[in-house]
């Protein structure tokens, strides 16, 4: 119910916001979806990843390359991104889920950095250090000829983000989500039920990776540009910060934190330039102290008090 209300309010935003803010919100929503997908790993599966941006990048490059060489349809590009995300998740996840805790953290960090190197070194395909530029503007069912592109694209992004959230929510509530939580709580117990713990974890990584890749497709379509830094540890940390600020056991919390952080970055980087990172860092430290459960902890506390 609350989700439908939120979607309705968001869908009305083009009538309230100007083109610039709308574009900013589009990016915020895409990052919100990717942060929520990371929350499935960090909070629900107990797998703290430092390489989640690799899925963003894989999705973004897949969508961008599809746009340049295959199809200008946004839907086709999204499909290519999700497929690439699934394949990348299965290949890297197969190894990653056999480690845990600190080693999982280091392993995913390494995967992310390898992905950066791969994108940088294969210049003929990816544009190398310069990034993948010249991505054509994607077509959106022909609606873009009738309305301002920024508005149509915002609705497209909102639809993708809503679908991604629906997938994440369904997985969390369903039997797979219970099994994922089970492996987080007690591996030995799950094995004693006959479950393959790596198998359940791989399913979690694949769902999170596919959803994150969808968010990556939105980034490529919105900016018509992808850089190797999109895959790197900087973006991975940003996503982790969003999860921790929002609350790792929540979907809406990280999304809200993402939108807030993107907006804050826009305001402070305009006024402070590079120093905005100081503001972000200070905010992060404060939140860790004051809101150990993240933003989601705030409304949970209110629900408990009521």
């Amino acid at each position, binding site marked *: 119910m609350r989700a439908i209300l939120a979607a309705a309010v968001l869908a009305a935003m083009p009538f309230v916001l100007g083109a610039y803010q709308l574009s900013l919100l589009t990016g915020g929503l895409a990052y919100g979806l990717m942060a929520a997908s990371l929350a499935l790993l960090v909070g629900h599966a107990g797998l703290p990843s430092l390489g989640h941006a690799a899925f963003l990048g894989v999705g973004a490059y897949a969508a961008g390359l599809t746009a340049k060489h295959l199809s200008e349809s946004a839907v086709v590009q999204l499909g290519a991104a999700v497929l690439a995300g699934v394949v990348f998740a299965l290949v890297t996840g197969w190894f990653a889920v056999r480690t845990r805790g600190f080693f999982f953290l280091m392993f995913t960090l390494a995967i992310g950095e390898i992905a950066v190197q791969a994108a940088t070194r294969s210049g003929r395909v990816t544009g190398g250090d310069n990034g993948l530029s010249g991505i054509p503007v994607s077509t959106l069912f022909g609606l873009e000829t009738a309305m301002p592109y920024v508005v149509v694209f915002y609705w497209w992004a909102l639809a993708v983000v809503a679908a991604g959230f629906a997938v994440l929510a369904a997985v969390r509530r369903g*039997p797979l989500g*219970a*099994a994922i*939580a*089970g492996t987080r*709580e*007690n591996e*030995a*117990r799950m*094995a*004693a*039920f*006959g*479950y*393959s*713990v790596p198998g359940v974890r791989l399913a979690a990584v694949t769902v999170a990776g596919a959803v994150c890749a969808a968010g990556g497709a939105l980034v490529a379509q919105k900016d018509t540009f992808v850089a190797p830094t999109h895959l790197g540890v900087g973006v991975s940390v940003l996503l982790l910060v969003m999860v921790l600020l929002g609350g790792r056991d929540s979907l809406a919390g990280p999304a809200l934190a993402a939108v807030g952080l993107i907006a804050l970055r826009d305001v402070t980087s305009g006024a402070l330039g590079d120093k905005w990172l100081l503001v972000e860092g200070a905010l992060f430290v404060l939140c860790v102290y004051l809101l150990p459960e993240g933003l989601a902890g705030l409304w949970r506390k209110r629900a408990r008090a009521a």
Partner: protein
Amino acid sequence: MMLTVQNLTAGYGTAQVLHGADLTLDQGRAVAVLGRNGVGKTTFVHALMGLVRPSSGSIRLAGRELSGLDTRRIARLGVRIVPQGRRVFRSLTVAETLEISRSPGEWTVERVYQIFPALAARRRHRGDQLSGGEQEMLAIGRALLGNPRLLLLDEPSEGLAPRLVEELGVVLAGLRATGISVVLVEQNLRLALEVADEVRCMVKGRFVYGAAAGEFAGDGAAIAAYLGVGS
């Protein structure tokens, strides 16, 4: 023979706990494993489940060798354990826990709710919101939903009120009729005698005494020797 254990040894690091345990169990029968604290009862059932790797000896389930298999494979072959201290998932609800424990077979979620109506009333509650008795029912229910051929129970009566232990006895005694073979580790002699057909007593990682449950109940000297006075 459903279960044949021969000369089983196991331990933790350099500390050997089981020193050649032997045991056989027919289908649809229940054996109580008794003994004082620290003699190796829990290690014995953990070795059967693959939670501890046996260092030598053999465990055969309906002729199939289990020794050396990992826990997951053993579970797939039809063994389930109700661990000491229940170990229910704290963050999962009763319904979720039962849902992820299901394997095809005669035991269904509805049937578990039938034998444990208290669980049905608490199906939306999380594991950490249940009482000790409800947690025990949940641990037994999720084990039964695996439709095991062999069920291992490690001190299910621990920490339960006497009335609950009695209820538990009725449910466990009823399981034999379903054809499940049961290995019950217990400190509560009354419960053990109510549930089990046979009794095996363990001393220092070995079974040194075996008798029918009725026979053991009348053997005051054996009870005093293996369980200590007052048990």
